[in-house]
């Protein structure tokens, strides 16, 4: 049979020659190989100081977007939670009062919205499911913590601050609404 790669090696158990039995040539050859590796350039990325370059559409920590007037987009429809294969999302909805009109865009909003970052597999299906352009994955990393509970992100960590918007334009695919 013709082999597909040139990596095929025929195994044999022929007795070792005298040179092979000495082992020393083999050992010296091996030591030269390791010595070459001492001189090689390291490919390590020293993480906190250096970071790997991300793809423009990297799927990292989520953000809950606000619209231009600073109102939260999410209407607590629950489609993201349904779409989520890891069951990482949970929320409770509430009805918007007149006094809160400047805070929430839709009449119904999420009074509580949580993503468990330990469950999340960063597949991006929540983002795809969302009809309101409310949730997006960003190129930010979820920072490490010492306690498991700290990985459950509430609205305090997910909703973008009004004065510090998070750019998600790279992940806005064509065919989706870009404005309201």
């Amino acid at each position, binding site marked *: 049979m013709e082999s597909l790669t040139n990596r095929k090696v025929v195994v044999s158990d022929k007795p070792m020659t005298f040179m092979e039995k000495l082992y020393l040539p083999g050992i010296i050859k091996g030591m030269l190989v*390791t010595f070459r590796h001492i001189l090689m350039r*390291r*490919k*390590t990325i020293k993480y906190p100081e250096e970071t790997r370059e991300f793809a423009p559409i990297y799927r990292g920590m989520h953000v809950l977007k606000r619209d231009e007037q600073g109102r939260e987009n999410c209407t607590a429809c629950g489609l993201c939670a349904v779409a989520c294969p890891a069951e990482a999302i949970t929320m409770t909805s509430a009805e918007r009062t007149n006094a809160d009109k400047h805070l929430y865009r839709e009449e119904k909003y999420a009074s509580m919205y949580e993503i468990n970052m330990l469950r999340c597999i960063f597949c991006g299906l929540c983002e795809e499911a969302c009809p309101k352009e409310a949730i997006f994955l960003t190129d930010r990393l979820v920072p490490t913590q010492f306690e498991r509970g700290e990985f459950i992100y509430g609205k305090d960590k997910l909703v973008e601050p009004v004065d510090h918007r998070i750019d998600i334009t790279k992940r806005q695919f064509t065919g989706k609404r870009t404005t309201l």
Partner: protein
Amino acid sequence: METFFWIDKLVLVVLLFLISLGIAAYQTYFERKLAGWIQDRVGPDRAGPFGILQPIADGVKMFMKEDFTPANADKWLFILGPGIAMFTSLITSAIIPWGTDLQLFGRSISLQVAEINIGILFAFGIISIGVYGIMIGGWASNNKYSLFGAIRASSQMISYELAMGISAITIIMISGSLDLRAIVESQHGMNWNIFYQPVAFLVFFICALAETNRAPFDLPECENELIGGYHTEYSSMKLGLFLFSEYVAMFVSSAIMAILFFGGYNFPGMDYFTDSPNLLSILSVAVFFAKIFLLIFVFMWIRWTIPRFRFDQLMHLGWKVLIPIALVNMLVTGFVVALYEHWF
């Protein structure tokens, strides 16, 4: 004179103690760095610039760990084991001539703690006691893995000590003395023994690897079969002493190899410095340490290149390969030395 003598020796002893420990500590750092480099990694680099504080962090860690003694262990032997291991590793450095004499305060100060005329015998005696630390530690732990480690260590020691001794005899025959300083003096300049006795060096080096329990002969500890071997049950600084004594032993055996085969503190062109004995002394110490570090590097280089031997292969190599080679080498050397002395 007498008091000065004691002061000199005391200062030298304390210095040697600190240097041995310091070098052993930084050997652990360098070993991890080298392992990293060989495996295309960076190695420890977090503690201080380039990670040079890593040995201190490791030491602090060792001290902070719980010091645990197994219930069925023999308490006294359990404590004695690491003590003996450390003691025997350190004590050999006393007989090593570290450099030519210093001229200070109008006196000549010898850089050798104990000038005994049977230095090499003393070194071998101490090295063979060294295995008692491991044996006692493994036995006292009352654990089958530890016992296996101890048994392996002692059988390995017996098998390799023979070939090591025989290959050292060739050096003794060439230089005609058991005194380490005389052996060093006989290799003045570039007249090193390695050029006359490459085979003896090879045998001696392989045996030194086995005696210090370094890979590929680290069967007494081998992590993946014996989960640590003789030090399985040890924790805290007792474990630290065991691990540390291995590095001190590596340092000292590199020094002995440098003396026996690489001319100790001799270096080519040392005759130019006869007018300034102090400069010569400092240079000779530096050269000696450079040789030691090079040998230590080779020790580590081998460890991260060659896989561990199987136990039967180890015995085969020791008894059926190294001892015959060493014996033939000794006989040939004996004949040549005898011929040389009678006919020339």
